[in-house]
């Protein structure tokens, strides 16, 4: 279903939503925050919507810090949330993570309690290559609604039945002309931006040939193994589990981790199957562009370009994909 919302009605709709749900919007170039009238819609934010589903801290258990204490499970959040202004690439990131986490209780609870309302970018960002990773931003993957700005109004696609409850009287069913305009825009996008042939080549490349390829040392040379890319990535989902104890109380939390760190794979014995920085670098990209690709048919990357923009050492993901695909 397609609806039309006049652009000047956006803030009154958001205000209405914020009275019924916890509403989050992009508040600055940094990221999302609670809606308080401010909106940053110029471009995608530095932090993605991943943190709504894999938060910086996910408490699992509470316990008294003494031997023999029986921990109490922590019930996750119950509230209903709406996140507005989600870029299609970020929503796709959530959909990719969901392939792995669909049965995970905390993830499911957050996913089921959260509406994602998308906003199409006017132009691809300078470092974006979502389409090359097979992203169709019009497809609505991971989204409940998608807003496409066009001539002073939003064309709003509805992707899930549950999202009807978000619409108010300001939304009118779109006429045929609007539907055709959106379809044309989608077609034009497809014509202009195709998936990279690299993906097909990577699917066919033998796993061990990729692993043993001679280029890893050179590709990994500038990498500092700082992990910034993994925390900013909308698809990286690895986590650590820690018991935090303060005074007599403890809580077991799940928190994002990074495969770039030496401790990530180090055994209690001291043995480490990925001791060298190169091995960790290689594992990260093989996971994204081979292991995940083979298992799910898609790479674990949405081409948002954050890792390229934020890498302190200038590692360019696109160079890595291209080099890998030429094995």
């Amino acid at each position, binding site marked *: 279903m397609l609806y039309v919302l006049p652009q000047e009605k956006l803030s009154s709709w958001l205000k209405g939503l914020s009275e019924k749900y916890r509403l989050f919007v992009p508040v600055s170039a940094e990221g999302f925050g609670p809606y308080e009238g401010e909106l940053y819609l110029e471009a995608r934010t530095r932090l993605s919507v991943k943190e709504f589903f894999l938060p910086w801290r996910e408490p*699992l*258990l509470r*316990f*008294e*810090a*003494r*031997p*023999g*204490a*029986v*921990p109490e*499970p922590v019930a996750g959040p119950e509230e209903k949330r709406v996140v507005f202004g989600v870029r299609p690439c970020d929503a796709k990131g959530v959909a990719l993570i969901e392939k*792995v*986490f*669909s*049965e*995970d*209780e*905390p993830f*499911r609870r957050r996913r089921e309690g959260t509406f994602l309302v998308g906003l199409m970018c006017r132009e691809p960002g300078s470092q974006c290559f979502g389409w090359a990773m097979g992203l169709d931003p019009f497809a609505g993957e991971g989204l409940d609604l998608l807003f496409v700005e066009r001539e002073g109004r939003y064309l709003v696609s509805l992707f899930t039945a549950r999202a009807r409850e978000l619409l108010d009287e300001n939304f009118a069913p779109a006429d045929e002309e609007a539907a055709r305009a959106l379809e044309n825009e989608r077609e034009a996008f497809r014509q202009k931006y195709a998936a990279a042939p690299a993906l097909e080549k990577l699917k066919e490349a033998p*796993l*061990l040939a990729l*692993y043993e390829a001679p280029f890893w040392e050179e590709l990994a040379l500038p990498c500092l193994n700082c992990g910034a890319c993994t925390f900013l990535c909308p698809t990286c*989902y*690895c*986590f*650590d*589990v*820690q*018991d935090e*104890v303060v005074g007599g109380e*403890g809580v*077991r939390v*799940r928190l994002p*981790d990074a*495969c770039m760190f030496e401790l*990530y*794979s*180090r*055994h*209690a*014995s001291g*043995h480490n*199957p*990925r001791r060298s920085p190169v*091995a960790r670098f290689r*594992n990260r990209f*093989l*996971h994204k562009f*081979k*292991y*995940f690709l*083979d*298992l799910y048919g898609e790479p674990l990357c949405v081409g948002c370009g954050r890792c390229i923009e934020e890498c302190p050492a200038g590692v360019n993901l696109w160079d890595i994909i291209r080099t890998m695909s030429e094995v």
Partner: protein
Amino acid sequence: MVAAPKKNMIPEPARIERVVVETDDGLLKSFYLRLLDEEAHRAFRHVPGQFAMLSVPGKGECPIGIASAPSEDLILFTVFRTGLVTDALHRLPEGTVIGLRGPLGNGYPLEDFRGKNVVLIAGGFAVTTLRATLVYLLEHRDDYGEITMIYGARNPGLLLYKPELKAWQERKDLKLYLTVDREAPGWDGLVGFVPQITEQVAPSGENAVALVCGPPIMIKFTLPVLEKCGFTPEQVYLSLENRMRCGIGLCHHCNVGPFLVCKDGPVITLAELKKLPPEY
């Protein structure tokens, strides 16, 4: 929408019913556990080769192979004291409640081994899940052909499950070869490393499977011996271990290429392992 089966990381409370110090150096202790919830305890079903996460509040969780057979009442874990959690575990007295999450992983496909000769090769304290396997095999003795076990430790004081080893040595339907690395006072059994003893025993690969658990160096030198004996990579089963956090295929710490030790393993055939990057 059909609700998917729930997966969570919530441990079940389990009481330490008995602690046995297994080795002379005191670094290995056996913990016999009973889930506090009687129903859950009765319903606990595992396959030899599977593992569980043991949990000490305030310290964390760690994966440990299940050393008891499915038929045994108490759930047995023999734990080497080596890290934060295992150190805390070793300090706990009998009667203490800890957390248990499992069974996890795949286990050995023992049904598929029916009618075959089974060779168990263990080095050091990696023997634990092979103990579970051997108890199972002996309980279903008629379903299997010859059963051979080769088990080595650095010295006699480091052999686990000594009372059982004695009983097993007396069985006519089990060939048990115990060995230690060097001559030791009071030891009149075999002397030599596991690969050498395997070479002497020379189990036939015909209609057989070999299950190998031990330190990497033992495995490295045992595999060529098995190959010489006629075992194909499809007939050799190994059990991997890697650092892991969740045990249910989410956190990705334990990956060996696309293979997740916690979910796709820990048991893997040599044939499958050869297709993976050597990151274990």
